[in-house]
């Protein structure tokens, strides 16, 4: 089951949004442990404040993980060929993360319909946090 239909996908098609969160400090501890990220900036309030931040903030890779789930929702497991994100702004505990994307190009290659997308996350205020792009390979519909 995938959300993007290879028969109808075209430039400008919007990917089905995915809403995650609100992010909790517990989420950050769980992600730190599971990903093997030792940086205390995401789990230790005092450390984060000493480094000049108002408190802990989310791993950029946690939000990128949400974008991964969002892309798999669009194209299916194994459909992603390329996937990049720039961590433009910090995501904080309490933020609701909405993953969004829009198709920028479609072309065929062999049995695959290749779909380029701009992708991003935004919080509850519509502020873009991660900004990136992905290339999905969908199964090409019968001609």
């Amino acid at each position, binding site marked *: 089951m995938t959300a993007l239909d290879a028969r109808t996908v075209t430039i400008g098609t919007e990917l089905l949004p995915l809403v*995650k969160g609100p992010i909790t400090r517990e*989420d950050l501890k*769980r*992600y730190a*442990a*599971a*990903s*093997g*990220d*030792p*940086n205390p900036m995401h789990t230790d309030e005092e450390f984060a404040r000493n*480094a000049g931040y108002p408190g802990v903030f989310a*791993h*950029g*890779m*946690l939000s*990128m*993980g*949400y974008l*991964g*789930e969002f*892309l*798999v929702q669009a194209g299916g*497991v*194994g459909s*992603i*060929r*390329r*996937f*990049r*994100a*720039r*961590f433009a702004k910090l995501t904080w505990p309490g933020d609701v993360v909405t993953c969004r994307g829009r198709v920028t190009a479609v072309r065929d290659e062999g049995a695959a319909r290749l779909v380029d997308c701009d992708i991003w996350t935004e919080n509850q205020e519509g502020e873009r946090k991660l900004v990136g792009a992905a290339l999905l390979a969908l199964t090409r519909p019968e001609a």
Partner: protein
Amino acid sequence: MPSKEMIGRVLSTGSATVSAEHVAAFARALGDPNPLYVDPEAARRGPFGTIVAPPTYPIAFMAQALAGGADVFLELGLNFMTLVHGEQEFEYLRPVRAGETLALTGRVADIYEKSGSSGTLDFVVLETEARDTEGELVFFSRNTLISRHT
């Protein structure tokens, strides 16, 4: 400032076997309910015949297989206190499968600095490739780290 002489150097190599438990813990930490990541029975009946990993799992696998990553930052002369992940890029040839052994090679791809209103920033681009036991490329990671000058 990290030395430009580091560009092109192989920084780290390592090899590890992908554990289904590690993949499942990673998927749970993302709150991703996809059964292909966590349910061996569903995965066996699925298109890959076994548990596969979520798209950003390589970051956790690299941390596990390239243990001692903090030494790499020291060697690069990066300030851990001000170090942030600026950009991340993956290329995939196929999904990572539980039970397979992958060999990683990490290189310094680029080092440069940019000056802006908040001072000078050091950029270090690390590239890591993962190959299976047949020598086939499975994924490629490009990681841009940013550190403020101190």
